[in-house]
Each structure stands twice: as structure tokens, then as C-alpha cells.
């Protein structure tokens, strides 16, 4: 049987954990978008996002309630991304220091992301079903875009152009929707 003090401690732990999870769920998507603009693959993004989440949890005691968890998490992620970047620096996909810094700095100060994400969801829903499914398919974890291209019967180049056209449609839709909301 557990000692009452131990029960209380376990209960505090549970509450603390739930608070952390709630904040993480709320802010983690922004961190992933931030990282995607800096790191070459989703694998890299996931690696750094995981590490940042773990570090945030370990340091959660030092996080001051009421302050901006999102900014705090983003700072951790930025630092972890920089560390990670040193490990993969030889890849041609990794940006040079100056470009990296510019992108990281500007992305950290980004404020309209929540609005854009909301519109992105709507715009994605507006896409014709087959196009939407194709776009989702090539973005699913573990799917190799080149293999999907080969299966499609199109040349790789033509296939990439199709995907890019869909991205442009989505981008235009989002920009238009955001502008309309602000107007």
C-alpha cells in the first residue's frame, strides 16, 4: 500500500504531466513548421522535435507558468536544431550559416501561423478528392515520393510538376483566404 504522501506526490506528478502534454499539443505543430523550414527532411524534423520535447519535459520545472510556453519551446527547438545541423552539415540540403540564421530568426518571430494553418486545412478540403489524396499520399511518413511517381505511370519530372502545381494551388488559396480575413 502506498504511503499517503507518496499518493499525493503521484497525483502532483500526474497534474504536472497533463499540464505539459496540453501545452505541448498546443504548441508542437508550430515547432514542427519552424523546423521544417530549416531541416532537409521530415526525419530530421522529427528527430529534433523529439529531442526538444524531451528537453522541455526535463526542464519543465524551470518553466514559469503564465509565460509563453510556445516561445520557450521554440527556443529549445532552435538550439537543438542548430546542434543537429552540425551533425548533418555535409549534406547539400543543409543551408549555410547565414541563410540558416536568417530563416531561423524570421521564423521565430512569425505571428500569423495559426491563422494560416486554419486556412490551410480549409483549402486542403477544397481540393478535388483525387488530387487531395495524391497530395496526402506523397506526404505520408515512410512513402517514397519517387516510388509513387514510378507507380503513377508518369515520368518523375512530370509527376513532381503535378505535385508542385497542387502546392501552388494550396498556397494561393491560403494567401487569398488570409487576405480576405484581414480585409
Amino acid at each position, binding site marked *: 500500500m502506498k504511503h499517503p504522501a507518496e499518493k499525493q506526490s503521484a497525483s502532483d506528478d500526474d497534474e504536472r504531466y497533463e499540464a505539459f502534454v496540453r501545452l505541448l499539443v498546443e504548441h508542437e505543430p508550430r515547432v514542427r513548421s519552424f523546423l521544417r523550414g530549416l531541416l532537409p527532411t521530415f526525419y530530421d524534423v522529427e528527430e529534433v522535435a523529439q529531442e526538444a520535447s524531451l528537453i522541455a519535459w526535463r526542464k519543465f520545472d524551470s518553466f514559469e507558468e503564465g509565460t509563453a510556453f510556445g516561445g520557450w519551446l521554440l527556443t529549445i527547438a532552435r538550439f537543438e536544431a542548430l546542434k543537429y545541423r552540425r551533425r548533418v552539415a555535409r*549534406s547539400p540540403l543543409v543551408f549555410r550559416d547565414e541563410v540558416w540564421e536568417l530563416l531561423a530568426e524570421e521564423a521565430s518571430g512569425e505571428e500569423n501561423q495559426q491563422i494560416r494553418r486554419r486556412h490551410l486545412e480549409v483549402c486542403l478540403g477544397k481540393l478535388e478528392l483525387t488530387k487531395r489524396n495524391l497530395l496526402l499520399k506523397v506526404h505520408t511518413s515512410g512513402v517514397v515520393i519517387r516510388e509513387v511517381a514510378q507507380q503513377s505511370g508518369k515520368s518523375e519530372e512530370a509527376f513532381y510538376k503535378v505535385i508542385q502545381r497542387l502546392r501552388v494551388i494550396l498556397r494561393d488559396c491560403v494567401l487569398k483566404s488570409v487576405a480576405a480575413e484581414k480585409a
Partner: protein
Amino acid sequence: MKADFEQRIAAWLDGRISEAESETLQQELRDSEEARTAFRLYAELDTVIREVADTQGVGTISKTGGSSMSTPGPAMTPFAKAAMALAAVIIVAVTGTLYYQHVNANRNIARITGLNGALTWIGNGGRIVQGSGSEQEPTRWSNVLSEDAELPGGTIEGTAPDSWFELEFDDGSSAMIFGESILTFSDQGQKELRLKQGRFSATVVPQPAGEPMLIRTPVADLKVIGTQFDVEAGPESTMLYVREGKVRIRRVRDGKTVDVQADHRVVVTSDSDMLLGFVGPERTWSQTPFWENLSTFGNQDSIATQETRDFDGTRNLLLSEESSSLPAQDTGHTIRSGDLLEVHYVWRSDQWWNAQDQIAIKLFTTDNDLISGAPTFFATLLSRTPTGDDTYQTGSGRATATKMESGKKLFVAIDTQDGDGELDGVAHVDNFQLQVTRFRKPGLRSLDDFQLEGTPFPDPLPAPTPTIIIGGNVRNGDFNRN
């Protein structure tokens, strides 16, 4: 122009950009804020599509993770739900199975069957437990890192070169990490492990149909049905060696997949050709020319050399601290006073090799000039301590023979110098070379020099040159060639 720029962004996002295109893209990003804004938007777009795609594909997993999770509020959009579910998946499957462990604190999936050295376990609710020798926090998990303790999954990290940790899953499959390695393990019906760095060995019993053990490393993913294999993972490469059965390995970056059969290995880097290499079987002392196991406790049928953990793709000596192993050789060289004896080799530590353990090359003579005679060790040449990063390092030493050894046969043994009181470490030695340089005193007649009576000795004498007596093609006995 704009279309070209967007094509370059797309190529970067898809991981197919060329170096030249990457240079152009970076130039554009550096020079234009507008370009950076456009780039960020595409990156964001990519992330959101990916999240939605993954959420649709992993609905069952997110249900597991999210079933007992507190949700922020009732008015959630489908996207918010998707994002939340995905975040739960990340927490469950990726960040050391934090959340899963929290809500499934009592479901143990593996048992510790052995451990050593400094270890950190990050388990339930993110609790961090230091183990094995270091003082532990007085928490309800403080005794978690001990033999026979059961674990619900989590992340185990070896924090010293001599750290190791072995666990056994409920189905009898076992896994082990060595040295400074980080392994996250979970079993939610399907075993999923993430070797972030370091070395990992496993023996996997046949897994349920359609649910192979998954092992993820920074550059490759492995699917294991049931087999024995070793993995070494670093940030830029993964080496897989399969001892039994078959393992499928897939490069993360481009999806290239190969099946690795028993006795084969493959090295995966971002640009390796992923060709399979045959790994020859281990050889015993009786199969190894020139060398023998001189230990009184050992026998000539124990393992002498192997091809894994290689330095240069060839066989290497498997050296153990245990008293049952003492590689030695009759060099065939008769010592003369003043002989300079030099050894050169490469070596690396392996499992259970302590940070203070060293290689000890011993030069000796015997009372009857036979290797089985009573030895007299006249020089012990110690290596440096291990680097601890699982790479080969050089070792060397030199000694000068004296009158005491003169006229006797030279024998050499490759031994170990224990640094931690535990004789269980393993190391690998390759490209062993022993050379002798004979120095003559000026003016002293030598049987080696045929001089015509009355002809003066050359002055000065030619510089002495070393003669290799072990190494290369001379008495190497498999240590530096197959």
C-alpha cells in the same frame, strides 16, 4: 523566374535538389526577404499536409495515445484534432514513449537481465534515473535499474565507454546496448526501437505475422522478423551485420531497401551504394597460422579472429581480458644485445572494455627456447586507454634487448592490462607489426658482415634498417589479411 524559384523550393522539400540548385536557392533566400517568406510558407504547407496525411494513416495509434488524454476543449476543428492526435503519436512513439508510459505505468514489457557502468533511464513520466553505481534519487523508480527489474519501456542511455545494458522482452527476444549508446524501446503489440547512437545487438525470436520488430536509426530503418544481428548507428551512418536469419534495411533519405542475409553486412550512409558484404566466419586458433593461444586455461578451438568490427575490411584479432585467452607467437628471431624491438598496431575497445583497460604487448624469452617453456618477460608495451568512441586507434611501443636476452629466441604475446578489476573486456587488434633494428657498434666485427681481410670497415656504417619479423606477409597469421 518565380516558377524556377518555386521548383527549387519543391526540390529541396522533396530532398532531390542538386548541389547547384541548392546554391542558387540559398543565394535567393539570402538576398530576398520575400523569397524567405515564400519559402517558409511552402515549408509550413508541407508540414500541415504531412500532419494531416499521417493522422489519417495512423488513426488507430492516435486512438491508443489519445484515449485517456485530457483534451483542451470541446470546440476543436478537424485539423486541431488531427494535430492533437499527431502530437500524441509523437509523444507516444517518439519522445521516449513518455505519454504512453505515463498512462500505462503498470504495463511492463521487458526485464533487465544485465547491466554495467553508468546508465541513465528515462522512463515513466519522464523520470530520469541514474543507475549502476551512481547514487539514485529516492523515488518510487529508484530501484528500477537493477537486474531482474521490469520496465514499461523508455529510453536507456549508456554514459560511459564501459556501460552496457541487456534486456529481455516478454517473448524472449533480447537486446543489448554497449558503450555510449541511446536506445528507446517500446512494445505496443509491435516492438519498436530507436537507436539514436551507439552499438546494439539483438536476438529476436520470430515475431507475429505483419508485426516485425522495427528499429530506427538516424539514417536507416530495419525490419526484423526473427534473427540475430548487430547494429552500429551514428548520426551519418548505420552498419548492420546479420549473424542469423534476414533483416530488411531501408535508407530513410531515399527509401532504398536491401535484404541482408546471414553472414552479410551493409553500411548505410547518405550516399553509400548499400552493397552487401560477405562476412567470413570466425576462425579458431588452430585455424590461425603462426599464432597460438598460450593460456593454460584456454584451448586452440576458441575464437581467434573475426571479420566484424573490422579496421580495413579484413580479419582482426578478438582479444579478451579473460584468462582463457593469450595470443602468442614464436617470432623465429634470435635476440642480440642492443636490438631495438618496435611494435605497431591498431586496436579498438568493444563490450565491457573499461576506460582504464589497455592492450599490453609482452616480449619474452623462455628457459628452453620453446614457446611452452617457463617465460621471462623483459618488456611490456602498454597502449593508451581507449578513446571510447568505438573507433580504431593506433598503438605502439619499443624496447631494447639487453645482454640478458641475447642469444635467446624472441616470443611475443598480445595481452591485456586490466584497469577496473573486472576481467571481462573485449577488444580488437589489427595490422600487428613487430620489427627489429639491429645496431652495431662502429668498428665491431660482425658475422653478418663479410669483410675481406685487410679491408677497412666502411666509415660511417650504413644506417641500420628495421626488419619486419611479424606483419605484412611475414608471420601475420590473419591479423592483417583474410
